């Protein structure tokens, strides 16, 4: 393998490097800003800290509007490993948490914490980790994460993730290359803070244990190279590599190629070839975080271009509006035909929407060029000179990409590896027809992304649609099957209608099933009706328990009998429910008991008589003892009476007479509730006229019983009623409107 570790080291020892294809040599224009030391800025009055400043997910806010914050205080927090917090860049008060124009090419507003500075710049308590070497790695990583450090060179990848690789690391590459014209922030940082950068590298070495550290610096920055060499003198494992100046040597994949000749696979990460890369700015921030506990709240920003009179590098607090930096550098908009401020370099940067755009963690340059510096855009037809292909550092065919992107033949553009394009702009730079090639690629890329997202969404929708269809069909089948079974049972019962009790029981069972069916169907076909039924079941519940407790004692006899009776009881409850939906509940109660007793009397003729006997016995016992039957589902001591095998009239009489007052009240309340609900439903379905009478009825039993709960109930019902009335009114209006629409 030509790219194995020893070969690479040998070649590096001979001061030889590799090269990447293509590349261009734009005018550097670095001397504008790299002659003066990094300047200090006054604290701006207001800072706008964007919540999401990196790739991954944002944390959730842990401050509120009006809260006082100290410099360095965390503003967000998250459990997600891909989230890093943001911090207050200075002390002051949170003035607002709202959407604010973002440092993104779209300028779309993003959630932002606005802080009004109190100009005291008071630090929060800092917790440095000076003895990091004796600490577990996880603690150091946590410190880096808590300091909010994400890559400061490009996309802003959370640093702690990059620093916890699963594989062995051959090379840790420190990217000190600033290949874009104008930008000098890393240059100045290396010249002035080489020691601190080295400390950051030390921390990274502790975490990554690389075999070798390569610090790549372009050969047009001799001062920076020297400063770093001095700082790293004691450590033989740190190798400063002077890289030939060529754009875009600072691209991650390009620099790896230059230093190690390894190629990062498309869609892969440097880690796949045993390499981790960090920017010098990130190293500086790491040492700040570990040795002084300071979070990432400021960075070096180059403010340059000929439209600013004092171009320089400045320590800018994250969240400072661009206007603040420009004002400090004497920006003169008169030198431009129209205000034009670029964030980032001239090759890969973007125009800011307005000067309120805040500095974020990846902002390395603010460029205000005059009109002569940047040529006007007058795009002409492609002459197929293929200069672009020669310049492309990724060996793509920019011309084909351009054709297909412009013609919206997105799949063909993808066939030409559109997504390997690093948007470096080298092709556009050399294009004699001045075609803004990169912009076409960006548009095509975002369109492809949107298309893919839509595809995913539609796939999901299809799946859900199909699942739902399947479910509906299954439900329909189940319903049909039930119908069929019920019909069969009924038929059977009809055919064998004899005198013996067994047949009677079967018939009763069939009826029970049919009734259950009816209720079920009702439930399924119309939810509102089902609700109604449910409500009435609620009301009828005491009846059900009456029967249930009545039938329970028979369990002593044959279990089949018991089951039969339970079924009958259930059937009746259901029937009661169903019928109550159309008629009066109170009328229903006695008739039910009647049927029940009828069946039981019939059973008397057969062997069931025994059971009835025991039943009566047990009932008498329980009545005497005023205790619930042992198997009763709900202990209601007085219920068993209603099922005694005497006569119908007696049953009803005893029932109405002997039931305790409190119970009566309860049942009455339940019935009243059911009625009210039913009424409400009815009203919702038909008209409001019949509302008054039942309501009056509702009131009577309530006054008998306990007052308090009734009132709240009434209130609830009232509220619901009002809501429903409003809804009905709306619905009516809607219907009327529709009708009017149709008739007109």
């Amino acid at each position, binding site marked *: 393998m030509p790219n194995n570790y020893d070969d690479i080291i040998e070649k590096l020892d001979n001061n030889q490097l590799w090269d990447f294809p293509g590349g261009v040599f*734009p*005018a550097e224009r670095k001397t504008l800003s790299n002659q003066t030391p990094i300047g200090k800025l006054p604290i701006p009055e207001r800072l706008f800290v964007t919540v999401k400043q990196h790739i991954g997910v944002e944390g959730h806010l842990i401050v509120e509007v009006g809260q006082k914050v100290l410099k360095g205080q965390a503003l967000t927090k998250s459990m997600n490993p891909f989230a890093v917090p943001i911090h207050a860049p200075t002390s002051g008060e949170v003035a607002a948490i709202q959407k604010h124009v*973002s440092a*993104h*090419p*779209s300028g*779309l507003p*993003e959630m932002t914490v606005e802080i009004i500075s109190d100009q005291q710049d008071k630090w929060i308590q800092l917790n440095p980790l000076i003895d990091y070497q004796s600490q577990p790695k996880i603690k150091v990583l946590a410190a880096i994460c808590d300091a909010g450090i994400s890559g400061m060179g490009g996309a802003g990848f959370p640093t702690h993730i990059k620093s916890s690789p699963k594989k062995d690391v051959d090379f840790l590459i420190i990217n000190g290359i600033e290949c874009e014209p104008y930008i000098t922030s890393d240059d100045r940082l290396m010249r002035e803070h080489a020691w601190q950068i080295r400390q950051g590298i030390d921390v990274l070495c502790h975490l990554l244990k690389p075999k070798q550290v390569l610090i790549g610096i372009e050969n047009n920055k001799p001062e920076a190279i020297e400063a770093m060499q001095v700082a790293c003198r004691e450590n033989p494992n740190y190798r400063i590599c002077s890289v030939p100046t060529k754009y875009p040597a600072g691209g991650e994949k390009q620099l790896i190629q230059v230093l190690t000749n390894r190629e990062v696979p498309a869609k892969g990460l440097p880690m796949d070839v045993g390499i981790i890369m960090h920017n010098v700015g990130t190293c500086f921030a790491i040492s700040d975080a570990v040795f002084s506990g300071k979070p990432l709240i400021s960075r070096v920003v180059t403010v340059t271009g000929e439209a600013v009179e004092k171009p320089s590098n400045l320590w800018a607090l994250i969240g400072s509006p661009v206007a603040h930096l420009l004002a400090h550098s004497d920006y003169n908009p008169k030198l431009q035909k129209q205000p*034009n401020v*670029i964030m980032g370099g*001239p*090759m890969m*940067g*973007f*125009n800011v929407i307005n000067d309120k755009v805040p500095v974020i963690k990846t902002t390395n340059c603010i460029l205000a060029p005059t009109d*002569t*510096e*940047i*040529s*006007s*855009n007058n795009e002409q037809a492609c002459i197929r000179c293929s200069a672009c292909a020669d310049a492309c550092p990724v060996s793509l065919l920019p011309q084909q990409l351009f054709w297909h992107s412009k013609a919206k033949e997105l799949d063909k553009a993808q066939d030409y590896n559109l997504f390997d394009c690093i948007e470096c*702009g080298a092709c*556009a*730079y050399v294009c004699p027809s*001045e075609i*803004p090639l990169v*912009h*076409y690629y*960006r*548009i095509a*890329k*975002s*369109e492809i992304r*949107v298309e893919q*997202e*839509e595809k995913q*969404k*539609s*796939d*999901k*929708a*299809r799946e*859900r*649609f*199909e*699942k*739902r*269809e399947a479910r509906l069909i299954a439900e329909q089948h189940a319903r049909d099957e039930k119908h069929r079974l019920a019909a069969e049972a009924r038929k059977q019962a009809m055919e064998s209608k004899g005198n013996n009790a067994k047949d009677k029981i079967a018939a009763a069972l069939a009826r029970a099933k049919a009734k259950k069916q009816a209720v079920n169907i009702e439930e399924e076909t119309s*939810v*509102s009706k*089902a*609700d109604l039924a449910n409500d009435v079941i609620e009301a009828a519940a005491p009846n059900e328990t009456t029967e249930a407790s009545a039938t329970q004692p028979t369990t002593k006899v044959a279990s089949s009998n018991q089951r039969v009776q339970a079924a009958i009881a259930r059937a009746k409850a259901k029937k009661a429910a169903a019928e109550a939906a159309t008629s009066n509940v109170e009328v229903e109660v006695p008739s039910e008991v009647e049927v029940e007793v009828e069946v039981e009397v019939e059973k008397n003729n057969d062997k069931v008589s025994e059971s009835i006997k025991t039943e009566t016995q047990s009932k008498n016992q329980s009545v005497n003892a005023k205790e619930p039957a042992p198997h009763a589902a709900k202990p209601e001591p007085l219920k068993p009476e209603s099922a005694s095998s005497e006569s119908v009239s007696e049953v009803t009489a005893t029932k109405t007479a002997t039931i305790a007052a409190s119970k009566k009240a309860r049942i009455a309340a339940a019935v009243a509730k059911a009625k009210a609900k039913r009424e409400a439903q009815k009203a919702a379905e038909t008209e409001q006229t019949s509302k008054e009478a039942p309501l009056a009825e509702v009131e009577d039993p309530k006054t008998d019983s306990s007052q308090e709960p009734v009132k709240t109930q009434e209130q609830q019902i009232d509220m619901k009623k009002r*809501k*429903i009335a*409003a*809804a*009905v009114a*709306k*619905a009516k209006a*809607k219907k009327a409107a529709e009708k009017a629409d149709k008739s007109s």
Partner: protein
Amino acid sequence: MSLGFAILTALLAIGLLALIFGSILGFAAVKFKVESDPLVEQIDHILPQTQCGQCGYPGCKPYAQAIADGDEINKCPPGGDATIKKLADLMGVEAKSLDSAHGTEDVKKVAFIREDECIGCTKCIQACPVDAILGAAKQMHTVITDECTGCDLCVDPCPVDCIDMLPVKDSASSWRWDINTIPIKQVG
């Protein structure tokens, strides 16, 4: 003689091979039979799966079936011209403009229930073709925005008119580069 024999054996051998492979293929055709019509599947994958029924069919799949059976390809408003173009490519027919009888292409929307007005009638749940509405009888209902296809089918059944169709907002991640917003030019 020997030549004739050789030809005979060759013919026999080839015939035998043909028989063997033929039966293998025949068996495979029966055994691994693909049930659904691949054309319908393909068409279905092009349709936007909004399941709105504007095409006159109860969902995208039925419309896909109808197209395969010879129906027009310009009846799907949510898909718009892009979908028609793709369908035309697939079916080998001329792309035509959207049949306005079925509606016009609109910006993408999702349903939103004004929750304090909802009376919990569950009608919208029954109308939603992709089960994107959550709720229970007499409880407040809500739309799972991520699952909503913007089909508009829940709006009409709502007795209190508390469902709005809101346009999907642009976010920085779904934002499309616009050639006009980036007039950065080269360094002279």
